[in-house]
């Protein structure tokens, strides 16, 4: 028997109560993440990728957020239906999290070592000297030199790169199965970003972790993820192996994203662009949300939403995919 995926999101829809009524920001989202795999969840601002991550962790307060449909299967358990007390046990233990801004996710009034050790006291019931010893060894594993001295420092005494290492140490200290990393390198300079990417790869290999990497940076995805999910306006528009998807995108939005990067353009020439703007949630049409910006639009696209359908080696939600 082959083991099922570690994480399987099935038909997930998430809505928020707003002044304009209830608005869906994630619609019918499905993807699987195998054990030991890194999956990239990609899209621009407002596409629903962070809401997806926070929903998997059940971090969004309800109300105003609601899981309207779908399941989040993790290790045989539906997190979408799990009570808050159960989620508190899972978060930080079975699932670790790393966010974009380590300065706002760390407690500024507490020494960093204590913050790592607290996770162990909470989930493992360790006493403080046991927790301290293990915390120091995990800080070292996260590439923090002089961890014994750093243990007693406060977040403001560390650089952005070191703070992100502390976040990673906190996320892995209990030996989770899944790490959810939401834009983990976006706030960092490129040379520091390169260090953090190398660290995440090493940690993954070492612990056999699965990583759900949420980012807008296609380059980071290409470096880290075997498979990629591209989101647009709350839905998955394309899903497949990263190499093939980036080389031969089938959905016009994926193609637009890749082509509009100056990396592929002739120097000084105009870049291919995606005209227009992402429609805000609540203003999305019955048809494909990308129709108004799409160079391959058909009449049908405006009236009927294209389901995510299989093409060779790919899932694409498009009535007229690129050849």
């Amino acid at each position, binding site marked *: 028997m082959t083991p099922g995926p570690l994480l399987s999101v099935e038909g997930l829809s998430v809505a928020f109560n707003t002044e304009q009524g209830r608005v869906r920001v994630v619609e019918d989202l499905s993807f699987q993440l195998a054990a030991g795999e890194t999956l990239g969840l990609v899209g*621009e*601002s407002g596409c629903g990728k962070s809401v997806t991550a926070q929903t998997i962790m059940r971090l969004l307060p309800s109300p105003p957020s609601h899981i309207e449909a779908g399941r989040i299967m993790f290790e045989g358990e539906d997190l979408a239906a799990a009570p808050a007390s159960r989620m508190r046990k899972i978060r930080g233990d079975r699932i670790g999290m790393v966010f974009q801004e380590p300065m706002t996710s760390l407690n500024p009034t507490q020494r960093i070592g204590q913050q790592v050790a607290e996770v162990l006291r909470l989930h493992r019931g360790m006493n403080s000297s046991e927790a301290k010893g293990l915390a120091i060894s995990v800080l070292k594993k996260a590439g923090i030199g002089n961890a014994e001295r750093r243990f007693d420092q406060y977040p403001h005494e560390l*650089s952005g*790169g*070191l703070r992100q290492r502390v976040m990673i140490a906190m996320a892995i200290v209990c030996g989770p199965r899944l790490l959810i990393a939401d834009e983990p390198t976006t706030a960092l*300079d*490129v*040379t*520091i*970003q*390169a*260090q953090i*990417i*190398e660290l995440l790869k090493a940690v993954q290999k070492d612990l056999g972790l699965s990583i759900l990497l949420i980012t*807008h*940076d*296609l*380059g*980071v995805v*290409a*470096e880290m993820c075997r498979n990629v999910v591209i989101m647009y306006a709350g839905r998955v528009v394309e899903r497949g192996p*990263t*190499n093939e998807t*980036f*080389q031969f995108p089938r959905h016009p939005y994926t193609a*637009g*994203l*890749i082509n*509009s*990067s*100056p*990396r*592929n*353009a002739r*120097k*000084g*020439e*105009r*870049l*291919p*662009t*995606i*005209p227009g*703007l992402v429609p805000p949630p609540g203003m999305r049409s019955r048809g494909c949300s990308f129709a108004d910006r799409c160079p391959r639009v058909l009449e049908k696209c405006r009236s009927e939403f294209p389901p995510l359908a299989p093409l060779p080696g790919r899932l694409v939600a498009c009535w007229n995919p690129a050849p």
Partner: protein
Amino acid sequence: MTALLEVRDLSKDYPARDGKGVVRAVSNVSLALEAGQTLGVVGESGCGKSTLARLIMRLIEPRSGEILFKGQNLVSLSAPDLRRRRRDIQMVFQDPYASLDPRMNVAAIISEPLDIHGIGSRAERKAKVLELLDLVGLDRSAAAKYPHEFSGGQRQRIGIARAIALEPKLVVLDEPVSALDVSIQSQILNLLIDLKKRLGLTYIFISHDLSVVEHVSDDVAVMYLGQIVEYGKAAQVLHAPLHPYSQALVSAIPEIDTQKKKQRIVLTGDPPNPENIPPGCPFHPRCPHVMAICRQIPPELQVTQDRRAACHLYREGPGGH
């Protein structure tokens, strides 16, 4: 041909947080820019690239050095002369949310520089605003709206319209597309490329994104801890960098095309602290090629293989290591 802008030995210090030392934000920067060219300035947080922009704009006072615009030293100009000169040099900022006054409508934002410099009659200014909106690709109805009614990309268009209202010669762009999504970023880059051609502008383009800089720049200066460490033609500096810091910076960019995989140089250690600049070469604590001399003597920026690099590896001139 004389340069439109020439910066000579420009330096700027700030008092350190401890109240005793100094932060050397920009040290001995020299560069030259001909009319119609784009100079890219790259480097990481704290390298001094934004301070350099503010010095060139004369928004802050340099400690020493000269900023020659059409041969005239902006540092020693009298206040009224400087004010007249400012028409020729304008700036676009990174954050289109913070750089537009939320209480002013778009027409007022764009015409403010015209009002300040007393250009045209009221009706002429109004016509000019509409013309500028056309030029940056915004609908004329935008004139009566307020910044919060626009997306980030549209706001950046408003900021650009304001910057070109006075028909400047030089526009300093400080991370103009960094806050924008990729699909919007390419729209704004196209606008900047078009405007440069149509209006004959000269750009200083500051960014941490090397692929963006490479796309728009003729020359590139790489900064590290307030100094230029490498300076030359964009294609050479970004494709065959000489300075070990430029090499690490270029190799750190994640590639979309996994076929193009390159050998990554991962720098050890933290980004440097401008309050505590190491002796000798400022890059030596992180440099994979560090030599004894690097810890003592700061290398000078000198001509090496068609460009300038500040590194002891190249101290004997071309091919000298």
